[in-house]
């Protein structure tokens, strides 16, 4: 008996968790819950978009150029970012998990490469558009708000922008780390073949 046979014996001797009796029912319940959640998300997103479009025409916002441009840039930037994230989550869900691990890893690497594009180009542009929109609106705020409220608006906006930038920065760093690690693992494995 080799040393590895001993290891295998040890492995086989460990206790395994019991199989739940109603496991299949739980899985089916979760599947329908996921489908329902997806439907609700789609309904909410579509309704929000429709309401925003309707509101745009209702207040004839296309006639008030300055306020509209500022709002359009801010809401548009947020909306675009949300759409990008939703698309990204969908893409991750749609990865073909029935592939062998090597091909699946390649698929995962290409997913994260696309995320690098989002983080490297789209995110800075979105942040810039949001800031420009806000700056365009600042004179309007100054005209219509009290001095105290106006100060509160621009100070809190800078704080919020900083908090979101840090949050996005942490997320980007984490995804870059995952991508780097996966690429180095793949290279290491290719070397071992």
């Amino acid at each position: 008996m080799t040393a590895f046979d001993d290891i295998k014996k040890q492995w086989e001797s460990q206790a395994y968790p019991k199989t739940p009796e109603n496991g299949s029912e739980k899985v089916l319940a979760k599947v329908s819950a996921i489908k329902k959640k997806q439907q609700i998300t789609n309904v909410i997103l579509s309704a929000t978009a429709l309401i925003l479009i309707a509101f745009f025409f209702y207040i004839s916002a296309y006639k008030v150029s300055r306020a509209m441009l500022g709002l359009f840039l801010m809401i548009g930037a947020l909306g675009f970012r949300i759409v990008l994230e939703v698309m990204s989550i969908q893409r991750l869900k749609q990865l073909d998990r029935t592939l062998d691990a090597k091909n699946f890893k390649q698929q995962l690497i290409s997913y994260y490469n696309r995320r690098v594009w989002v983080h490297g180009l789209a995110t800075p542009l979105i942040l810039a558009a949001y800031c420009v929109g806000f700056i365009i609106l600042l004179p309007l705020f100054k005209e219509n708000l009290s001095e105290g409220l106006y100060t509160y608006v621009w100070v809190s906006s800078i704080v919020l922008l900083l908090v979101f930038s840090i949050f996005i920065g942490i997320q980007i760093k984490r995804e870059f780390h995952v991508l780097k690690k996966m690429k180095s693992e793949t290279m290491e494995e290719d070397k071992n073949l």
Partner: protein
Amino acid sequence: MSYAKGDETLAKDLVQEVFIKVWEHLESFREASSISTWIYRIAVNTCLIALRSQRKMQKTTQVDSLHIPSKDEDINEKEDQLWQLHQCINKLPEGSKTIILLELEGLPQKEIAAITGISHEAIRVRIHRIKNNLTKCMKHDSI
């Protein structure tokens, strides 16, 4: 459980997710491979994707939270060796860990090759190397 590095809750979540994915993709199963190979592929890929997004959390939970009695407890030699085995497996690179866990589960090398996408010959060599590393680790506690 080894994939989840001892985190029982995560392991249960992963099992459930694998079953959901099997259910969702069942129609795409074309009998090009055996059903077990197909399910193992989904299981390995689901673990890969889930553990990537939780990598940070794992760094803190790794070996300490293995569902095996800790060294402080009154444990016998068998449990101690099992604890050490899990530690050694967790020290292996991700790809090697996948291969050796499948080998320990008793899967034929041909099936491991089909699951991992590595040629049968290369798998044979890899398993030989990993076995040596694991045996060395169990003896000297280092890879």
